């Protein structure tokens, strides 16, 4: 079954968001896809976070890398992108790529084959991942877009970043729902963390101060099969 065709043809205007004039699909699985550029962006994979904890004595299940790769495989097979950008913190630490189980490495390499693959340097993985193909870059400008790991302090139109692991919370009928989200104001976008073991930080936290035009800030909360666009007055801290 050629799922990718079906998926691409499904992209209608209503499914798209605009970032500095470029159109992108905001996928509820936590990735951005730019159909005109055939470009997929994913952020904060934090591969080998499990083994990173294990090194320090917390023997949490060693399946996070496998789980993350499985989900990545699903979106890549749906969109069949020509370019993939991993927006930094692809590995939880500098030794991650080296520690990765051989079977996972093979799966990752299979995903990379036949595409242009960029590892954007993150604070957890400033160096190129050991023995893996792909190009490691500080940041990457494509068209009107600028991809980098940490959002700049000053507002940059068209910047797409990760690092902060945004999530949002609403309270409805006395019940609280918290989800990972994309956070954007039309000019800049911060992507949710994709890794299986990645936590998240509320978009109303101090860490986001000054990053967005508050009047147009939206949280695109991840649902199980759709995105929920929630405007700032509905959002709750914590």
């Amino acid at each position, binding site marked *: 079954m050629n799922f990718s065709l079906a998926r691409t043809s499904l992209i209608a205007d209503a499914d798209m968001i605009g970032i500095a004039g470029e159109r992108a699909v905001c996928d509820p699985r936590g990735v951005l896809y730019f159909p005109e550029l055939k470009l997929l962006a994913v952020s904060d994979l934090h591969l080998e976070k499990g083994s990173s*904890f294990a090194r320090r004595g917390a023997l949490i299940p060693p399946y996070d890398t496998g*789980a993350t790769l499985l989900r990545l495989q699903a979106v890549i097979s749906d969109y069949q992108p020509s370019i993939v950008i991993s927006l930094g913190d692809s590995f939880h630490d500098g030794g991650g790529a080296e520690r990765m189980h051989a079977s996972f490495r093979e799966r990752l390499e299979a995903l990379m084959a036949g595409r242009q693959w960029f590892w954007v340097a993150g604070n957890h993985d400033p160096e190129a991942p050991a023995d893996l193909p792909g190009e490691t870059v500080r940041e990457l400008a494509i068209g009107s877009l600028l991809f980098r790991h940490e959002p700049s302090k000053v507002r940059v139109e068209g910047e797409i970043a990760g690092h902060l692991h945004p999530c949002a919370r*609403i309270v409805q009928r006395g019940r609280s729902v918290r989800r990972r989200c994309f956070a954007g104001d039309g000019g800049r976008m911060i992507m949710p963390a994709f890794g299986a073991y990645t936590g998240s930080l509320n978009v109303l936290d101090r860490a986001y101060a000054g990053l967005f035009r508050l009047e147009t800030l939206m949280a695109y909360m991840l649902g199980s099969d759709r995105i929920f666009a929630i405007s700032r007055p509905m959002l709750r801290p914590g």
Partner: protein
Amino acid sequence: MTVEPRLADQNAAVALPEPFVRWFGEKGWSPRAHQIELLARAQAGQSVLLIAPTGAGKTLAGFLPSLTELAVRPKRKPGQAHRGIHTLYISPLKALAVDIERNLGKPVEEIGLPISIETRTGDTPSHKRQRQKLVPPDILLTTPEQLALLIAAPDARRFFEDLRYVVLDELHSLVTSKRGHLLALGLARLRNYVPDLQTIGLSATVAEPDELRRWLVSQNAPKGLAWPDMAGLITVAGGAKPDISVLDSRERVPWSGHSARYAIPEIYEAIKRHRTTILFVNTRSQAEMLFQELWRANEDSLPIALHHGSLDVGQRRRVEKAMGENALRAIVATSTLDLGIDWGDVDLVVHVGAPKGASRLAQRIGRANHRMDEPSKAILIPANRFEVLECRAALDANYLGAQDTPPLIKGALDVLSQHVLGVACGGPFDADLLFEEIRGAAPYAALERETFDRVIDFVATGGYALQNYERYARIRKTKDGLWRVSNPRVAQQYRLNVGTIVEMPELNVRYVRQGRGMAGRGGPVLGKIEEYFAETLRPGDNFLFAGKVLRFEGIRENECVVSNGAGANIIVPSYAGGKFPLSTYLADQVRGMLADPDRWQALPEQVADWLRIQKEKSVLPKRGDLLVETFPRGNRHYMVAYPFEGRLAHQTLGMLLTRRLERANARPLGFVATDYSLAVWALDDMAALFKAGQPSLGQLFDEDMLGDDLEAWLNDSWMLKRTFRNCAVIAGLIEKRFPGQEKSGRQVTVSADLIYDVLRSHEPDHILLQATRTDASAGLLDVSRLADMLSRVRGRIMHKHLEQISPLAVPVMLEIGKESVNGGANETLLMEAADLVEEAMGQGMVRAGKV
């Protein structure tokens, strides 16, 4: 043997050393028969379980063997090494240990015994702990967690080598929890150090004393030694019968709800007529509400105080002190006051809400009049009509001496994992020997070797099928065949995480002056509330806490900032836990009462009337039958069932029934459960389905729902995630969260929910998931009780179709909408919020939709 609570014979008292006899004489007292009996048996080398009501001199009985032996022990010569601990006393509460130190110190001083008594709890300063290690006291009073820590220290064997007795207080309360499992394992370790160690268990009356007797001794004594597998038993018959009544109110008893607001004037009158009253409630929310209502009625400004587990410790200590000094007229309390602390001259116990269990009621009533020869006086205040039945049943039970303490459960594997790591921290161990030792602990007597080996594997490398963590092993088997911790950091981590009590994430409630908002600083901490409750509040909301109306200002790091509040719309925080389900025994009593109109005479007229009308309009089920009513209402169809098996079992049943009704295309919309019944509502006519046999009622309630349906639902349930988190913390997979660490930690640590999701999809048979499912089935889901009920009612389901709601159905129907059922509805809430945005902002704005 059972002894009357009388004084000992003259000749029996001779077993006491002379200074003790003289002390009793000076006090004008005589030792009681059970005290002397226990002393004699202990001196003969036996371990003993003493079951006695409050006020029977249990504590002194428990310590007499130690005190008499220490009294005649030769003095330590100068230059001789310090002796180790002689007697270890373990209680479930820190406060109890402190209380005992005071109570025991007095006779020791008066008799002039050269005995040192010290406590060791989480509050003991580190210099004192250090000193205790070098110069151990003769008697050490402590808690199960502290014992675990002592065992995990490298010098444990030497510290305990002189140990003679372990006294276990409030044993009935300790053994039913995971703390009991940890303690049982600790005891097994102590027996390894000192094979002829004797134990003395002190307990309130329990349903199965033999379970406790086994608990006290090794179940796995070395071959060739003819040790019995049960401790001796001394039972002290109950004292004067308590004087208990159910309030026969002048007011109308409500159909549902838990506030008992209708009875406030009558409760206040009762407080005025007595010297000191304890008012027990079942939950912290009820405590807050009752306290508020009482103060509203308190025209005479009587000193009435509040005591529950979420209040600041300092506040609780002040209340306890005032209570001890008889400075209070009344105190509103939850189960934090259940255990045997001495509370001055209480002459009335008021139990607001049904007691949920006969044994619990007996314990709480025992709080009044700590002298067992005088009858305790108690009034039960049912909060609604079903509770009237329940109170009546409990009252009959207390007179009959019926007992319904919960059954003991098999030793938990997460606790075992913690213990194995603790043992390794104390020194290298041989797996075969440790296995034998652990099987000596009653909860683990049936532990299989294969399971034990998996636990060791888990402790070492996480026990994963994908063996990726060999190089990070916490313990390793060395060439000599012994297991050792791989580095000192492991022991440090263990010490920080010891224990089996895992709290829900909580926030400190910080009080600031009004009008300062979030900028306010430095006010007092009033206590703690659970994070998930605080998260549902908006700034400006008013809620009830610590007996005050507070205005919510916001959340700042790990603090919930509040100021003085006021207003009409006051929210009462709900707390997870603390809601006891109706005991099986009481449930059966209530069913019996419903089925027997002769017994309705003992009920208040308005309640008896209610049952009579039910009989007229519908039917009342026979004692062993299950009544299921169906009726239309509005444009919906309702089904109400009356199993009387408690809220937890009913919730599980409700989840499973709605799944089945969904498959039968009855289009169920929701359900609500109480302790007594549950209601399911649907778009389609369920009665018609039952009639057509699609499915029949028998099929709908078939036991096979506990197979795949349960499994499928369970895996996605929030309850399982919560249980997993507890197991993972206890087993040492994830670390305990400490105050202040919470917010900053969110990005750095890995949440238990994420770990659960990953582990479940990659290794569903992992030992920790097994432990989680076992726990959830026993605890939050009450599956075994549900299974018993389903098998009991097979072929005995009575269906009654009605044109309209029956009187018996009213209470549960009133609960609809009050309590939301946790399900998959989160997406709906998100959709509502997103739609609101669209509505407010208008169409056409950029928005991401379905992909």
